[in-house]
């Protein structure tokens, strides 16, 4: 079936099987491989992207369900050659090691800051509690998010 959606600001139309998971559509059909596939049970959260401004686990979305919606992925975090503060925070505070959970973690943390610009450490931990990182023990992800909270971009980042 034919599906049309907006991905990172561009309208895309593709023929897909109705059962195609959005994570596989984004990765395999569009080639946006920053969104990852880490489990089959929506537990790991490496596939988080924005759908109509809400972070969703894209392994739980069938591609046709994203029809007419706005999708935004990690590839769209950097704007005009400027890293989003959450990206800079992850670098500065060593919030990543293997990098596999990182894109989705950054999206969740960015989304938290968009709604709560000055979160406590507990609020950050709660925000990322639906996602798994095997490398960092989470501490530096919390610090990275705090760094981004303390260094907001001059230009408002819209989700």
């Amino acid at each position, binding site marked *: 079936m034919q599906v049309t959606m907006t991905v990172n600001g561009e309208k895309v139309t593709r023929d897909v*099987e109705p*059962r195609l998971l959005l994570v*596989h559509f984004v*990765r*395999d059909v569009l*080639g*946006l*491989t*920053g*969104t*990852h*596939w*880490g*489990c*089959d*049970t929506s*537990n*790991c959260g*490496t596939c988080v992207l924005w759908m109509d401004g809400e972070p969703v686990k894209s392994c739980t979305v069938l591609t046709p369900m994203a029809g007419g919606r706005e999708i935004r*992925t*990690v*590839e769209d*975090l*950097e704007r005009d050659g400027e*890293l989003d503060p959450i*990206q*800079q925070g*992850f*670098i*500065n*505070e*060593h919030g*990543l*090691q*293997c*990098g*596999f959970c*990182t*894109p989705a973690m*950054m999206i969740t943390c960015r989304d938290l800051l968009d709604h709560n610009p000055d979160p406590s*450490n507990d609020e*950050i*931990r*709660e925000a*990322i*509690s*639906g*996602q*798994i*990182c*095997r*490398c*960092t*023990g*989470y*501490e*530096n*992800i*919390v*610090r990275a998010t705090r760094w981004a909270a303390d260094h907001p971009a001059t230009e408002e980042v819209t989700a």
Partner: protein
Amino acid sequence: MTAVEEAPADPVGFGRMHRKEDARFVRGQGNYVDDIVLPGMLHGAILRSSYAHARINGIDTSAAEAHPKVKAVITGKTLEGLGLAWAPSLSHDVIAILATDKVRFQGQEVAFVVAEDRYSARDALELIEVDYEPLPVLVDARKALDAGATVIRDDIEGKSDNHIFDWESGNKEETDAVFAKADVVVTQDMLYPRVHPAPMETCGQIADMNKVTGKLTIYCTSQAPHAHRTIYALVAGLPEHQIRVISPDIGGGFGNKVGIYPGYVLTVVGSIVTGKPVKWTEDRSENLMSTSFARDYHMHGEIAATSDGRILALRTKTLADHGAFNNTAQPTKYPAGFFHIFTGSYDLEAAHCEVTGVYTNKAPGGVAYACSFRVTEAAYLVERLVDCLAGELKIDPAELRLKNFIKPEQFPYTCKTGWEYDSGDYPRAMRLAMDMAGYEDLRKEQAEKRERGELMGIGISFFTETVGAGPRKHMDILGLGMADGAELRVHPTGKAVVRISVQTQGQGHETTFAQIVAEELGLPVADIDVVHGDTDNTPFGLGTYGSRSTPVSGAAVAIATRRVRDKAKLIAATMLEVSPDDLEWEKGKWFVKGDPSTAKTIQEIALAAHGPMELPEGVEGHLDGSCVYDPPNLTYPFGAYICVVDVDSQTGHVQVRRFIAVDDCGPRINPMIVEGQVHGGLADGVGMALMQVIAFDEDGNCLGGSFMDYLLPTSIECPSWELGETVTPSPHHPLGVKGVGESATVGSPAAVVNAVLDAIGVRHADMPLTPAHVWRAMQGNPLRTDLAIE
């Protein structure tokens, strides 16, 4: 001493600095195996056994073959024709690539479908009919050697039981004699249950056989690309120079990505059969159910001491569950890995260790998950036993440890099972951890809470690891010695490339190894490219696991760089028209002794090395150097960990309130990266102690086959880690550094368990200490955590 977050500088050499690799990762531009798309690429999927033990009477693939998008269906019969149905394991056994006679664990590989896309390959699996005849199932290792137990490995000629090996270390008679005279002997059975490393990226591979050139290019989630290539050459008879193994970015390994899995071999067969590149990516259930598990050690431990708390001896009899095939990845001479370092951090009179390995109807593997070749089990055993002894003698567990540590002046110290500990200052690390924790205040708080009926626990673990395998005369895998190469080339303009054999899975090698070159040669880190993960472009070596990258390859890079520096000296002497003996080195330049104004920078020297200047007799042009490093000994990092928990007396729920970790891994090349490694390992420890287990029911069904059932720690279970460090250099490593990648995973589980048991006042209960299990332990009725059998 705590981890103060300083703004990272940009050191020329060692120091805190941001990672070179992060620029791509934060942009979603990491390049993992499943991200790679080759022209014409096909997709593979594996049909797996639903039974844990069953004879295969027949496989009907006709419907699958008729699927319009299916290009090939491969079964054990196909492989038998190629001589590939069975392959040598890493431990002198064989493994089935695809089952021919019978399946031996749930999730075993039975057939492989190659199709035009991922989903069609999966569809076709549903069309394959397998005629299984179920057999009795053995999942309880403790019954594996019973008379009449079902024989799992009847493929081995003459095999009539499930016994794999008996192995021992230390002196039995001496140990028994010390036990006989001891005032106190404490005995405890304990299980280190089966767990799985579960990196966020599952395993996968693309094989691309070019029939014209004969070259096989493999993209694999491998921690050890060179070992993979050589094994393909040895096993499949493919010419080694015609195989190229590329490990691109790896989404975590933790030991899960050391071995060669049937799925990898099947992509190669699939590519040969179809003439197209074939990709196979595991799903999570495949990863958890079939690839290398870890632990599964049933340990009977004994500790002997005097009544005033001097530890005299340790001994253990341990049953090792290796699953259906013995496929542990470990040095050949050590079937139980380095488990015999269960002597821990204590000055003993005697020690003896016996391990028996058995087959069960469970997935094969046995060494994985940041365990440093079974040091994890060893550290857990000794640190639990010491706590049991402290309870028996009513001595504070910190005091008992301090009383029995190997003293700083005793190093190098040869333990009773033969390891030569290179260096250590255990009391210093222990006291620092106690200071950071506020140990005495914690004990006071605990006493006050107990009065109020609140359950608070303080757990200590002091570990010593043996990492950086290893001296090649003692250590090999399938006959390949565990030495690693490094090559450094300085380009004419003074930029450099260093090529290494080890492969990062997130440890930050692109930064750390550049920092080693920078430290030794004075080039900016940004000017040094680190090439790894490609057998065509890197020197041979056995890869990254067992915390061996910095101990082995770090030394190789340091020595290769020093050779370049020595060569630069000869060239600088020619440039300055002086004798090399008259030159003095300061980071980045050679100059005439006492006259820094004469300095020739390494960049100037590099250009001269490539230029028209006539070089002295015996000095070849260009500026490069290499080294193959055969470590003279392993390195012995250590640490003092203190965990504070609160336990809900009504639900048994454990909250880790604080975790203090003092690590000593020698000098830290990049402290930020080291701290990150420790953080991750501590989370592993909390996970294993409280949540993670791959258990089985009596039919052999895997009860940890998805993240719904195999529970990994999240940000909620993990506290904010409190780190400290002491620095005791290794005397034999050129940089004084020791491995650290696995320290926290090795050291932390015992601290968490000791804390929980301290809180609830129970001598022992096995991991994972889930709320239900803690509650049961409090009722004096602990569960057996590895089986869903009462």
